[in-house]
């Protein structure tokens, strides 16, 4: 479970808070989408959960324990993080990329190898083919799959993802997000995904938290947001999925 309490962040030389005060609870097993326009503080919020950014005030609790007292390195090991720019290390093979944390933690070699293969299978990359590939030999979608595998390497219970599908074309994007949903359920993860695409959030997440100017505007299921948007901003945000859904419904209604 992830819990944010009165979390705030103000960057140096800024005249207002980038985030907060923010209160948020993500129960175990939930996949939460953090949606907002650029600059709404959603990435910063995500980075505060694994202490890549230190909050100015307030606290983050994971399974009821305040993370500010924890060793950031140990904390991050328990949290998978997928970056916006995919960020596989270019000079390392896919296997090395995935294995880097387990090997630095001195897991036995055969265990690491088995882990790599298992993860590659999980993300639908054939280990025999992809283990030795270098990142530049992969397509965008395959790279993102490898990045998922890498984030999962140290057996995290929590996954944080910052616009993971942002750089992909629409088709790959849909395919991957559906697969991530499956992985999320299979491994019983608690996940937060940051996106600016409301449609993606609707398709993927259990609940959606809408952020604006560092604050939480509304949080709820897709249905709740559609039925009862808290304000004009949320109404605007859900307009696109609504239009798309309507268009799709019309298309489905017609004989194929």
């Amino acid at each position, binding site marked *: 479970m992830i819990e944010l309490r009165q979390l705030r962040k103000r960057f140096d030389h800024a005249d207002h808070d980038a985030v907060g005060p923010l209160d948020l609870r993500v129960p175990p097993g939930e996949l939460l989408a953090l949606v907002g326009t650029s600059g709404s503080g959603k990435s910063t919020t995500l980075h505060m959960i694994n202490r890549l950014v230190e909050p100015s005030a307030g606290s983050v609790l994971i399974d009821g324990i305040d993370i500010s007292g924890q060793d950031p390195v140990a904390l991050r090991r328990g949290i998978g993080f997928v970056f916006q720019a995919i960020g596989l290390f270019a000079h390392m093979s896919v296997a090395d990329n995935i294995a880097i*944390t387990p090997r*630095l933690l001195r897991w036995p070699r055969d265990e690491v190898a088995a882990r790599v293969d298992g993860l590659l299978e999980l993300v639908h990359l054939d280990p025999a083919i992809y283990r030795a590939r270098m990142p530049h030999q992969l397509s965008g979608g395959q790279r993102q799959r490898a990045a998922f595998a890498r984030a999962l390497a140290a057996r995290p219970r929590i996954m944080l993802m910052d616009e993971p599908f942002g750089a992909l074309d629409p088709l790959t994007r849909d395919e991957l997000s559906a697969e991530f949903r499956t992985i999320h359920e299979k491994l019983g993860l608690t996940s937060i995904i940051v996106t600016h695409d409301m449609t993606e959030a609707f398709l993927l997440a259990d609940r959606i938290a809408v952020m604006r100017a560092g604050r939480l505007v509304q949080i709820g299921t897709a249905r709740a947001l559609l039925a009862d948007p808290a304000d004009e901003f949320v109404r605007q945000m859900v307009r696109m999925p609504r239009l798309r859904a309507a268009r799709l419904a019309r298309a489905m209604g017609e004989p194929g």
Partner: protein
Amino acid sequence: MSLDPRLVMSSVIFGLSIGGIYFLLAIGLSLCFGLMRIISLDQLLYYSIGAFVTYSVGVATGQFWLGVAAGAAAGGLASLAVERLIFRRIYARDPTFSMITSFGLLFGGIGIIKFVWGVVPRPVEVPTLAQFDVLGTQIPVYRLIIVGIAVVVYALIWAFLHRTIVGKAIRAAIENVEHVEGLGINVGRLFTLTFVIAGALSGLAGGVYAPLILVDPMMGLEMLAFVFMVVIIGGLGSIKGTAISALIIGQVVSLGSLIYAPAAQMAPFVIMLAILLIRPTGLFGVALTRR
């Protein structure tokens, strides 16, 4: 002017050895920049410390190589202290920021050295005066030992970065430190390790070079421009580039002083300008993105 081939031969060896020293010093500077984005001028302080410790231990025990080992260790220790106390606080800032800080450290360090050892230059005895004969030229064995040490260090550094997982992690962090951090890898430890390695190599360079020069507090400053030129010509962050350019500058300095002694100081600078004109980031320097 006709050049005596024997003079040329010994000059080439001289160039190789001085290139070796440049390499030992520049490699630390280059690695620190690649990984932490700091310009660590204080490496030249560890170089001086290495030389002075070599002198002191050598005088106390009569064991030169023990002195060199102690010098390298002292360089490593000093850099460890500096990293923990000072650099840790400024990694997030602009590279030029670290340059100013490290310049301050270099200067403060020189002050400390003056305080401890005084300003009188100290001689260190060459451990072996043996010479050996190559095509009629007498080559001091000690010069060859220096070249050997540089080659071994290059091989070790290469193997460390390409064959061990910690080295691979360092290279990964050179690529993108935030991603490595996000994976739950202790980046701070990688930084410390790299910095200490750099400091120890600088100390080693000072110790090894000490018998060939007079050890005095300003020796680091005298070396500074050459190390800079090596790093710049090779390209910051590139090990291969640093090695190659150390080789070039070594030869330029030694062969240059054979032809016209005063110009030997100028020649590397002119070469650096020429190379920068063609490649503003040096021979192997990558266009590093800011972060």
